[in-house]
């Protein structure tokens, strides 16, 4: 039941179809006294937000123009030096490329497989609860557990993956040691781990589709495929936008599983931009430079966000 509750609250908010305009008239009617008391309610959050979100953002910008180090070395203003260095730093571009590649090869399957799984479960397979549980369960695991499991799956000598290949008559694959394979191995793990969440969003959306549409379509003689293409998928568009958006953002910030599994190796082929920032700032002590790279990444996120803002509303309209 809870699975239905969450998307019902999520979907309308995301849809932005003008269905929830009540708050603004209420706000307009509220008097100054009401507004003042509202301020007190907001205050605790505002303080935390200011301290832990706004201030670090501002401080980070300031830091990116200095050569601040994590140690005691003096801090001096270096202007745009850090940014210039970042633009010329091949490791930045390599790491950025890795992050984008990872985003591409995880977002697509994480949307399509989740949709496929939700459709299968929704067709009324027996034991729906079991499928739901099985598809969602990995998502409940913490990252350390997931990587530990997969470390053994990908273990070169004793691992499940290579044992399977061996049984099928193929040679061993260097899952985490081959530059051409490592990122795919991590993507596979990530899909296994997180597809359950998207699956749940899709399943809930499917369950809330009005039966009347299907009844009408059936009366008009539409077959199962017709109904899928002409009713289900279009009706799911809003959910797809939501899932895709959340997924792109989640994939762009990939760090944990890569850091634990490969530390960015072999030969930096899996090092995401966030790990490079971490390496530079916290292992290399160069906070100023690390900040500058963060803001370049920030700029990229803004570009992605604007692209999404422009692209998706138009599609919806």
């Amino acid at each position, binding site marked *: 039941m809870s699975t239905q509750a969450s998307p019902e609250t999520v979907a309308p*908010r995301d849809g*932005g*179809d*003008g269905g929830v*305009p009540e708050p603004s008239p209420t706000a307009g009617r509220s008097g100054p006294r009401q507004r003042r008391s509202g301020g007190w309610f907001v205050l605790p959050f505002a303080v935390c937000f200011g301290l*832990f*979100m706004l*201030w*670090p*953002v501002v*401080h*980070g910008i300031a*830091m990116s123009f200095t*050569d601040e*180090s*994590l*140690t*005691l*070395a003096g801090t001096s203003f270096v202007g745009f030096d850090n940014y210039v260095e970042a633009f010329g730093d091949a490791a930045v571009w390599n790491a950025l490329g890795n992050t984008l590649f990872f985003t591409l090869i995880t977002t697509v399957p994480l949307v399509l497989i989740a949709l496929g799984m939700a459709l299968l479960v929704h067709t009324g397979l027996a034991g729906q609860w079991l499928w739901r549980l099985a598809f969602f369960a990995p998502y409940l695991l913490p990252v350390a557990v997931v990587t530990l499991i997969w470390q053994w799956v990908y*273990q*070169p*000598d*004793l691992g499940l993956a290579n044992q399977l290949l061996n049984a099928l008559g193929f040679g*061993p694959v*260097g899952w*985490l*040691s*081959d*530059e051409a394979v490592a990122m795919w191995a991590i993507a596979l793990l990530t899909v296994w781990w997180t597809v359950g969440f998207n699956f749940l969003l899709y399943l809930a959306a499917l369950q809330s589709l009005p039966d009347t549409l299907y009844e009408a379509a059936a009366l008009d003689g539409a077959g199962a495929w017709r109904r899928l293409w002409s009713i289900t998928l279009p009706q799911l568009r809003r959910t797809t936008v939501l899932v895709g958006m959340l997924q792109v*953002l989640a994939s762009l*910030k990939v*760090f944990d599983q890569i850091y634990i*599994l*490969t*530390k960015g*190796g*072999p*030969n*930096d082929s899996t090092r995401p931009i*966030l790990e490079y*920032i971490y390496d530079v*700032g*916290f*292992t*290399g*002590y*160069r*906070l100023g430079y*690390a*900040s500058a790279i*963060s*803001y370049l*990444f*920030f700029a990229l996120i*803004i570009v992605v*966000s604007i692209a*999404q*803002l422009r692209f998706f*509303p138009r599609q919806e*309209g």
Partner: protein
Amino acid sequence: MTGAHPRRHDRFTVDRRRFLRLSLTASGAALAPGLLTGCGAPAPGGDGVGLKIWDLFSGGDGLLMDEMMDTVRGGPDGFTLDRTILEWGPSYYTKLAMAAAGGRAPDVAVLHLSRMPGYAPGGLLDPFDLELLAEFGITREDFPPALWERAQWEGRLYAVPLDTHPFIVFYDLDVAERAGVLDGAGRLIQPGSPGAMLETSAALAEAHGGAGLLFGHVTDPAQNWRIFNALYAQTGAAFDLPESGPAIDTDAAVRVVSFLQELFDGRTNPNHLDYFGALASFTESRGAMIAVGEWELPTLRSTGIRLGAAPFVNVFGEPAVATDSHSYVLPRQERPDPARRREAHRYVAAMLRQSLTWAGAGHLPAYQPVLAEPGYAELDPQSSYTEAGDLAVLDPPAWFAGSGSLFQDRMSQAIQPALLGRASAEAAVDRMVRECADLLDQPNPVR
């Protein structure tokens, strides 16, 4: 639609900030350990508050450390101690550096001696008071000269070595006997040349029926560097990292990597194992010998295999073993309390005298008087690699090098494809030199 747009926009704003929080503004969160330490730190001169100790012993040696600390807690002069165990790795050194930079560090911390060049010059450590140490019975004569020398910076002592923990070989004694690679006294015959080492591993493999020498390196941030560092030092060449640029004998380096390729050929000796895979292979008796740090002794001993040990095999002539040393340091404090500082010195001295217990973990005591104690000679197999302590090769002194450093990770990553047969030895060495040059190009943040 007009109503939808601003709300959508708000959501994105939050998302962007969430990103920032994760990446760059982690600096704020990461400052927390330092701040928290500060909160917990006693007011200067505060009596009755335990000496704050940071260490990174979370494995089998952590339990021995517990035992040693319990011992020094007892008695009329017992210490009040407040121990914090943190996981070894880059993050330990980040936390320690931050705590020291904040000036509210623990009273005593454990640091790998190889990391000292990244700490002492930047003012992150306070020097030891030699007179105070002498008062508690600790003098330079108690340590191997090379180790003592390495703990100095600008003529002052910044670290007191507790141990050396070399990269060595463990082997199955029964198999080694059958393979005929032991001398009359039951010790491993040091091969002395690349050809002889290949023969040794082939003989071991044959006697065992599985692999000769096991070595786990895939995706490991240090193993390849350890084995390279030992073998390279055996060639007699120098690996220096002055600021003018890396001074590396590339011919010697290529010889070492080529030899490693020949040794780990994927037939006699597997070349695709990772760290835990190699350990598991040895404990499941799928190989005769394993090249690994002596700190794995507690793990290996629990397997029931009759265990032999030796300093890492001498292949290129000059005896040398890749080593590091757990050392006690006094992280910088803004306003050190003389009474607590004195207590810290007394604590370090007391712990050094517990070195025999520490040797139980496989580590070689740096405090030499312990080696003469009757109990030490009985420690088996520790006593069979004691000489490894004298052949110690640490990382080249540079702010970015040392245990758990980016440098070791970069070097290991450069060598990995060569061992896996995906790159030539020359390409691997080229990459090592390039990586060193890149690291040297970075502005030194500790000066």
